[in-house]
């Protein structure tokens, strides 16, 4: 076991972990943050996507060791069921979830894009989101939901 301090959603968490534990397991099993999902375990589907500093990463293949001093953000940081954040609200408005398993990862990858580029065009959204997979096939609604926030950002700007 090894001692690792993770900064998750703005609070520091001192954890005793197996030295080879990927971030996803620490989030779910040690911190009770069950938004990020285990999909393939291979960094190929994106269900586990979280943001580290300002980049989307696959938490299933990101070792906890080495994350000290970095800011980890999960879907729980975007809002709650009672008070969804703007991106979450857009996903609700566009009915972007079917089974919902991929959605936490989709939200975090989209969030990273919008923070970097507040009004991406559809082509940019498509390219950025292409690594996250939805088995139900709601990709078109997901792209619409992200486009909705991009348009809001544009009218706000």
């Amino acid at each position, binding site marked *: 076991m090894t001692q690792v301090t993770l900064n998750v959603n703005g609070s520091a968490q001192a954890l005793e972990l197996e030295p080879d534990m990927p971030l996803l397991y620490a989030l779910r099993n040690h911190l009770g943050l069950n938004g990020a999902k285990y999909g393939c375990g291979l960094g190929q589907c994106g269900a586990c996507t979280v943001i580290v500093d300002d980049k989307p990463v696959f938490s299933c293949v990101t070792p906890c060791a080495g994350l000290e001093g970095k800011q980890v953000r999960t879907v729980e940081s975007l809002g709650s069921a009672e008070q969804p954040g703007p991106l979450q609200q857009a996903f609700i408005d566009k009915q972007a979830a079917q089974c919902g398993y991929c959605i936490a990862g989709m939200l975090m990858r989209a969030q990273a894009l919008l923070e970097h580029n507040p009004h991406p065009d559809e082509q940019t959204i498509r*390219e950025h989101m292409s690594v996250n997979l939805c088995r139900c096939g709601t990709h078109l609604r997901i792209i619409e939901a992200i486009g909705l926030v991009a348009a809001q950002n544009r009218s706000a700007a």
Partner: protein
Amino acid sequence: MNARFLASRRLWIGIAALACIGATGAAMLMWRPAIAPIERPQTFDSLHVQRGARVVEAGDCAVCHTRPGGQYLAGGLPLVTPFGTLYSTNITPDPQTGIGAWSLPAFERAMREGIARDGHFLYPAFPYVHYRRMSEGDIADAYAYLMSGPAVNSPALANHMNFPMNIRPLVSFWNLLFLHGEPLKAATEQSASWNRGRYLVDGPGHCAGCHSPLNLIGAEKSGEYLAGGSVDGWEAPSLLGMARRATPWRQDQLVRYLRAEVVEGHGTAAGPMRPVSLSIARLPVSDAQAIADYLLSLPGESSVSEVHPDRVSAGTSDLHSGALLFASACAGCHASAAPMRMIDGRPALAHTSALQSSSARNFMKTVLEGIPANPGEPGPVMPPFAASLNNDQLIALAAYLRQQAQPDKPWTDLTSTLEAIRQEAK
């Protein structure tokens, strides 16, 4: 006095004459006429167009002349060179922004001499040094194919070349030094396949553009043909002596590697070689076989022998943390029992050319950038780890995996290589 006056007058006349000769010479060297524009020819023999498609694929034209997300052959891809950044141009038959007004002689002059239709000098990033070795028939077929495609209006982007290379006529001096090749003639003592392979490698394929070291002004070093170079921060390995290495390439392995497949014992093409191999995969298999026949006939390296650094073993703490990191980040796909390893003969990492190379560069580039998916194309996909692993972790992982691949030859330049790569990525 008179005699002195005469002598001085002769001197001045001499200087003036020399200046005239110099100015004429410079003009002859640095000025090329425009070739009259034409109406875009409408019809070509379909056989020529089909053959031209194969030539354009073999020439990897689309690899540079199509930008990601852009329209086919409409240009706009940035090419970062030590002399500044260039943008590839539109080679669709649009008369204003493409090559729609180019006659065949204008196209052939560009391919063989690097001169645009209007007479301006093209930069040697466009591999006319190699294309000039192509046959007349292939160039005419490529022209037929390009002129038959859809015209896209896409103006050239402004290059950002550093002084003095932003002055195009200076390219004429480069040409004077390095533009010597002639169209290839068949070597009668070799097989037809070998000749075809040499033609593809030296002509349209322009392999040496990346796989030969370049001199200070960006020309291939003459004595080190295919001895290994670099491109876009990746090591383009030596193509010499491939049949006689510690882990030799068999002909069938090289053919499959060239066609973007995963090859047991060697791995798969990544980085800038990925689009090239996808391009070769669209050619008849006989072309990949020909390239392999030719490359495997090349003798081993002499001047560029493998680097044997002093034996410095990686620290045991690095190896231990490297093993833990492998378990954490890589084993899901790369462990010996991983299901991903059951697919099309994927080799142990230790056998890949990235881990066998004397430089850690390609290993690190692959881990940092991954192998992105090419929509619509088959092939392995690897996620990027640039945001998932810090520098210390990447170094520990590299030391651990190198120890398994080449226990006697640890990489000694890990920190500097990684710093250089991170710097280039900025």
